[in-house]
């Protein structure tokens, strides 16, 4: 037996050796060099397709490997960022090859045109502002609206704190949550007091702020749109609380297998702050806002997601002003449900419904004993279908309907409005040739018996990953405010604005530079003629925005510069001649610096705006230096503090009809807040959603 075994082994060895020799004789060596232009490409993967025979190129781009394949075969060379190279030929001819690789051209799905848009998400290296960044930004005190005011194109209007974009009114900027319109995205307050955005930054995973030239999907916005996407279904339970001198918050999430249910309750009250710090205005009922929010999200599968949101705010504030006791009450409820699903063959379908209801009551609104009552409601219905046709073409089309009702009563005067706007849009994103992209869309809106067709285009040249040039043009429309619509004798439909923007962007690993000159022309603005608003107003707005963000000066230091020059004029409302609107300032500058040392992040911001023009005078320039500090006390506890206007300059926001200056109720504002995660197993996650 041992002998037999030995024999068997010997025979096996001989067979193996013979096989090996036979194999060696059948090997063919494939060799060559891989280059891009004249430069050798090191690390390219060269192989015979359908086998694992191949190798990586060396530092000089050379490759050499053997294969047992014979006859005709396909040689393939791949390298990230380059087009795949293939050569089908007889194996025996594949030696001393010279393979020229070409850089890969961006597909329509990969291209991100940045013209006139600031995206806050996690895909881009820059402006990766998530909820925590919003909380820590300059003087934002956790307010999205205040955080967005650090961007170019924004104009400082301190007396209400809303977003004024590129010479447009605040209501020309419209907010969308998961693609659905929000009728009133701000909280409310008494006159000449800054308001805040009504949504918590922790609700959202992505914010795209477009300052003009947006796609046909978005309507009813003359100047800009702010679409925000809520976070996905939570994967673990959460419970968190936060507290500051002015607001207290508790919220949590219960995570299920493929869904999650969240709630959040918040009380904002200026009572304690008013007692601690003096102010100019006399509030007999300090500002109080009670908010509740709930969300339910379900992922039926990877490509079918349902999201729902309901938010309710009740605001109460009383102010003693001009001998009367103004009392303001507002109920604001917003709800939406959206569903997005892939329906096969590259199609995806979006459907959504949203409802906004705002009820406002004001006692002693303008004089003792009067009463103002306003109820506004909007239902927004939307359906959209998208298809990626190929690597060079993507299309989408959709329909939507805005159904609006409004009732206002002020003593004897009252109105009731019921109208709806039906809209449809078609969008196409097309890579015309490598590096040149066209986004063309058309939006049609039907209101009453009028039809409005609005073409929009963006032509982009993206020569490489550092540079981007875009030319944007298009028309947008919006209905006028209800108060003007009610006084228009029913012949007013929509105002329109034509946009033209040229955008240049340079982006390196550490620096972003964007320069955008723009021009806007307004048509059919409401103009008061004999007490009736007619669509005879018009206006222009032109200027240039510059934005620089840099990470290279000092390690852990981020600096930004936003500068906006704006020259706008219009004839509208009760103007008797063309003039610069009183909310517009010619120069706006914002400088910020954020420096991280260990667990501490320090922020410094300087805001400047040139004077604004009123019939009773021009205001001095606005200036404020703000400082903030964030300390990560533990992974689950974050302390944030900020002091706005540290030098205590008394900024004059505007002049009233009697030439009296309107100034903030306080020159400085101190915010100290603590955010605590109670149940969450994650650090730095102070979101309850």
């Amino acid at each position, binding site marked *: 037996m041992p002998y037999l075994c030995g024999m068997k082994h010997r025979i096996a060895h001989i067979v193996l050796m013979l096989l090996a020799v036979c194999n060696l004789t059948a090997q063919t060596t494939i060799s060559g060099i891989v280059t891009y232009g004249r430069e050798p490409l090191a690390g390219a993967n060269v192989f015979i397709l359908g*086998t694992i025979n191949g190798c*990586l190129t060396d530092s000089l781009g050379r490759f050499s490997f053997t294969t047992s394949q014979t006859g005709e075969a396909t040689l393939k060379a791949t390298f990230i960022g380059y087009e795949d190279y293939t050569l089908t030929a007889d194996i025996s001819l594949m030696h001393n090859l010279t393979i020229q690789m070409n850089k890969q051209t961006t597909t329509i799905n990969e291209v991100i045109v940045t013209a006139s848009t600031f995206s806050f998400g996690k895909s881009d290296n820059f402006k990766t502002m998530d909820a925590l960044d919003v909380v820590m930004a300059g003087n934002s005190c956790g307010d999205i609206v205040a955080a967005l005011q650090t961007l170019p194109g924004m104009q400082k209007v301190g007396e209400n704190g809303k977003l004024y974009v590129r010479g447009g009114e605040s209501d020309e900027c419209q907010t969308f949550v998961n693609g659905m319109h929000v009728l009133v995205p701000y909280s409310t307050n008494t006159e000449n007091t800054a308001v805040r955005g009504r949504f918590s930054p922790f609700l959202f995973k992505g914010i795209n702020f477009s300052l003009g030239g947006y796609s046909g999907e978005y309507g009813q916005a003359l100047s800009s749109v702010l679409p925000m996407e809520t976070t996905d279904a939570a994967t673990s339970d959460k419970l968190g609380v936060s507290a500051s001198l002015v607001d207290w918050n508790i919220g949590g999430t219960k995570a299920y297998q493929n869904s999650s249910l969240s709630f959040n309750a918040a009380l904002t009250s200026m009572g304690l702050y008013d007692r601690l710090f003096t102010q100019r205005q006399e509030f007999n009922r300090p500002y109080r806002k009670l908010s509740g929010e709930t969300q339910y999200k379900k992922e039926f599968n*990877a490509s079918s997601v349902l999201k729902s949101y309901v938010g309710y705010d009740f605001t109460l504030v009383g102010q003693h002003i001009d001998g009367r006791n103004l009392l303001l009450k507002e109920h604001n409820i917003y709800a939406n449900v959206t569903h997005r699903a892939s329906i096969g063959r590259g199609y995806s379908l979006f459907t959504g419904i949203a409802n906004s209801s705002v009820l406002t009551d004001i006692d002693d609104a303008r004089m003792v004993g009067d009463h103002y009552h306003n109820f506004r409601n909007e239902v927004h219905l939307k359906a959209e279908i998208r298809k990626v046709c190929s690597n060079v073409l993507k299309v989408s089309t959709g329909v939507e309907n805005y159904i609006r009702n409004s009732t206002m009563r002020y003593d004897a005067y009252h109105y009731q409005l019921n109208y709806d706007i039906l809209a449809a849009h078609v969008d196409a994103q097309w890579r015309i040739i490598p590096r040149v992209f066209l986004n063309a869309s058309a939006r049609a809106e039907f209101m009453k018996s009028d039809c409005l067709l609005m073409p929009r285009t963006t032509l982009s040249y993206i020569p490489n990953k550092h540079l981007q040039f875009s030319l944007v043009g298009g028309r947008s429309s919006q209905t006028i405010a209800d108060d003007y619509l009610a006084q228009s004798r029913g012949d007013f439909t929509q105002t329109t604005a034509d946009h033209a923007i040229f955008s240049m962007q340079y982006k390196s690993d550490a620096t972003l530079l964007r320069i955008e000159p723009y021009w806007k022309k307004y048509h059919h603005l409401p103009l008061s003629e004999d007490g009736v608003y007619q669509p005879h107003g018009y206006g222009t707005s032109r200027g240039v925005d510059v934005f620089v963000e840099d990470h290279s000066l000092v390690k*852990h230091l981020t600096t930004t510069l936003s500068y906006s020059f704006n020259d706008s004029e219009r004839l509208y409302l009760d103007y008797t001649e063309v003039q610069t609107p009183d909310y517009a300032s010619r120069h706006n500058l914002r400088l910020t610096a954020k420096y991280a040392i260990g667990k501490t992040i320090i922020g410094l911001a300087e805001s400047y705006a040139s004077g604004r023009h009123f019939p009773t005078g021009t205001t001095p320039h606005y200036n404020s230096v703000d400082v903030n500090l964030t300390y990560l006390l533990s992974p689950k506890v974050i302390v944030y503090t900020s002091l706005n206007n540290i030098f205590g300059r008394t900024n004059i926001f505007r002049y009233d009809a009697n030439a009296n200056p309107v100034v903030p109720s306080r020159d400085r504002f101190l915010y100290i807040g603590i955010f605590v995660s109670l149940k969450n197993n994650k*650090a*730095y*996650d102070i979101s309850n959603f």
Partner: protein
Amino acid sequence: MFVIALFMMASVSIQAQQPAQSDMLNSVAKLKRIEAMQPDSIQPKYQLALQSLSFAVTYPHAPQTENMIAEAEQAIAKMEQIKHADQSDICTLRGFLYMVRIVQNPAQNGQRYYIDVMQNYEKALKLNPNNQLAKQLQQKFLEGMKQQTDKQK
């Protein structure tokens, strides 16, 4: 599948001692060839993404690392296009991808991607409680974060 299994037995395990850069790059290259042999299969894509990320986490600042991360992203994106791909595996790879970003620059990316890493691992384990890779990566990540925060104290 047999070829992949044989290859994987020989390829570098993420738990093993730090392998040579060239070996890991060659492993990724071989997996890419296997992936080209079986363009409709999920497994080669999964292994390709995993090996690419293993290289990136082992050599976070090597000149080839960004390409390896891009390779992994491409492979994950291809997996997502396949109807019956295991969502738990995809979440694990996504979590690993964010984890690599943190390893590359803990000071900047730790705070930015921490939640994404945790949520992806949690989701992976929710979909498949027996996903051993997700368990191990999650454990390693938590240990790493603990060390990092202890260092800051």
